[in-house]
């Protein structure tokens, strides 16, 4: 049983039910015991009363002789039986009966009494309890009639034992049942969770399985699925709208750009005009590249199939990025330090991975001052690849770390540097597509980007 099951609300609910159920069963069994035991005691008392009635009746009619006759007859009927008789004179001297002497703690009034039987005969192996009633006859004689309640006590013990076993079996069966029920509930919840995880990881076409039994879980699944359908169609239309905007604006913008270029080639006489046109072309190119970047992010985000993924030697790819950017770092007199573990592979799109890592390294170089250090470290901890890109620039304040992945977000400090605010959005999209993770930390000073890489096993 895993800890997740022990932590689940189903299991806790089962525990509460078990506690409630156990208490009810305990109360019920207690009542059964109390009712049975008191019935049995009442029966004993009733029998004793009847016997005393018989004996006193005989005494009244036939005197002491009649009483002793009847007592002798009763005693001889069942010599080892549970009945106890004792007749004494007023000085408690035994006259007749199967008790040797008056019980030690027996009072002389006509009350009920409980006492311990002394070991009168060999049939009684252990201490027996007796219940008796004392009756004072006319003439000062004392009559004690009682019962050995040993059998009764054994019966009561039996009942208690039986009831305890009943309780134990009930709890075991109840516990087993609630665990089984809890597990089946949890399996269904787990199925919903699993589908949700896959949907969150980008597979928007996934749906929550339904058993078509129409129970409450199925209704929950159906409702969630309807919600997912709506989200999917909304996302699809948003994607189409943004694609269309970018696409539809791109074409006229491209025409504008091309006309400007033609104009540039046509006016070769005036340097001033050429420069102005050149700047206009550059501005159009900037706009086009922003549109292209937006479209590219949209495409990467919408990409559901990872069909064109191939095994990529990530260390070699990062080395290529580092090699491409090394002259730029050198130009800024920065120290680019690479420690790349060899032989690590992951499944991915090498152009997109190259783009994402170059965006990050480009940012690091851009924001690190001259003579600063940029570190690129790739290592492997138990099958989890990790790429760290650390710089010694101004870093990113904690409050802005989540925002940098938003489209067009730019920090105050980098508003003056070139860029369109889409680089990190593309990084985030590529990271998501590859089921990688990204975390930004303080490098004291600078920014440390940590990317978790799902490595392929060899």
């Amino acid at each position, binding site marked *: 049983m895993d800890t997740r099951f022990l932590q689940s609300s189903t299991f806790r609910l089962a525990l509460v039910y078990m506690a409630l159920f156990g208490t009810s069963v305990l109360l019920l069994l207690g009542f059964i015991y109390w009712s049975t035991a008191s019935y049995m005691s009442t029966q004993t008392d009733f029998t004793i009363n009847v016997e005393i009635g018989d004996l006193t009746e005989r005494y009244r009619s036939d005197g002491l002789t009649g009483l002793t006759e009847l007592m002798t007859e009763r005693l001889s009927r069942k010599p080892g039986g549970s009945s106890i008789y004792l007749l004494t004179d007023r000085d408690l001297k035994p006259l007749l009966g199967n008790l040797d002497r008056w019980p030690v703690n027996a009072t002389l009034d006509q009350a009920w009494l409980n006492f311990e039987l002394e070991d009168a005969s060999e049939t009684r192996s252990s201490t027996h309890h007796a219940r008796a009633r004392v009756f004072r006859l006319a003439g000062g004689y004392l009559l004690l009639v009682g019962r050995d309640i040993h059998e009764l006590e054994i019966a009561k013990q039996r009942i208690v034992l039986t009831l305890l076993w009943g309780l134990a079996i009930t709890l075991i069966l109840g516990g087993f049942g609630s665990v089984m029920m809890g597990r089946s509930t949890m399996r269904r919840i787990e199925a919903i969770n699993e589908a949700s995880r896959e949907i969150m990881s980008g597979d928007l076409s996934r749906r929550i399985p339904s058993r078509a039994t129409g129970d409450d879980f199925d209704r929950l699944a159906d409702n969630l699925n309807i919600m997912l359908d709506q989200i999917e169609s909304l996302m699809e239309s948003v994607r189409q709208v943004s694609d269309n905007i970018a*696409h539809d604006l*791109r*074409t006229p*913008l*491209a*025409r504008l*750009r*091309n*006309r400007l*270029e*033609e104009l*540039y*080639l046509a006016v070769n006489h005036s340097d001033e005009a050429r420069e102005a046109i*050149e700047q206009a*072309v550059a501005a159009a*190119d900037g706009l*086009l*590249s922003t549109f*292209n*970047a937006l*479209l*590219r992010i949209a*495409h990467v985000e919408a990409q559901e199939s990872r069909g*064109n993924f191939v095994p990529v030697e990530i260390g070699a790819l990062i080395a*290529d990025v580092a*090699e*491409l*950017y090394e*002259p*730029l770092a050198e*130009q800024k007199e920065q120290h680019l330090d690479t420690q790349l573990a060899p032989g690590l592979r992951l499944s991915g*799109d*090498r*152009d*997109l991975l*190259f*783009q994402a890592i*170059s*965006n990050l390294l*480009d*940012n690091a*170089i*851009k924001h690190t001052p001259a003579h600063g250090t940029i570190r690129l470290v790739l290592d492997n901890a138990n099958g989890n690849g990790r790429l760290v890109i650390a710089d010694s620039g101004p870093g990113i304040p904690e409050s802005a770390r989540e925002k940098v992945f938003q489209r067009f977000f730019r920090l105050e400090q980098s508003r003056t540097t*070139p*860029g369109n605010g889409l*680089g990190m959005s593309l990084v985030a999209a590529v990271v998501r597509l590859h089921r990688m993770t990204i975390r930004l930390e303080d490098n004291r000073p600078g920014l440390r980007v940590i990317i978790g890489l799902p490595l392929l096993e060899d």
Partner: protein
Amino acid sequence: MRILLVEDDADTARYITKGLKESGHSVDHAGDGRDGLFLATDGRYEVMIIDRMLPSLDGLTIIRTLRGAGNRTPALILSALAEVDDRVLGLQAGGDDYLVKPFAFSELLARLEALLRRGAGGTAETVLRVADLELDLLSRSVKRADRTLDLQPREFRLLEYLMRHSGQVVTRTMLLEYVWDYHFDPQTNIIDVHISRLRSKIDKGFDVPLLHTVRGAGYCLRAP
């Protein structure tokens, strides 16, 4: 050179035709796929520019049909789609290069000239020469005026590409694609830094510069 353009968008076609004619090339234009295929099989062109999305017959089918019939004319695919799979599909169909719309005319021209050179060349040279610059592919050494130059492996490949296309304009994206073998958008003009590094090795200390920057287009390595 004789160029076939298959493009349904009139404005793009006009822009390309005008530019190519001004650069001294002759251009035939087809407005849909069927006419394009007809012209391509019939006429003799040195290079073809084929749009991917065309009425009646799409660009990839045209190229596939031509290749099936043994026509090896270099083809450049134009496309509004910018995804890696699209480019891979285009090249698999038999295209020789792939250019995403919108593009700068200089980029198209540079790529066309590179394609033409590739079609005409193909001789297994082992030593490339431009003026007094000499690159030996076997010993992987570079000399200029008998002085040995010390190049990094990537600088060697960069110089090799420039020398194979000497006299032509080579754009930054072409260098990224063919020298670095990655298709991506650098946020910085990173190629410029590599070029200036290479330039300092091959031109510094010599009277005549060989590696030139072509404004608004790219670079050109040429003999004076």
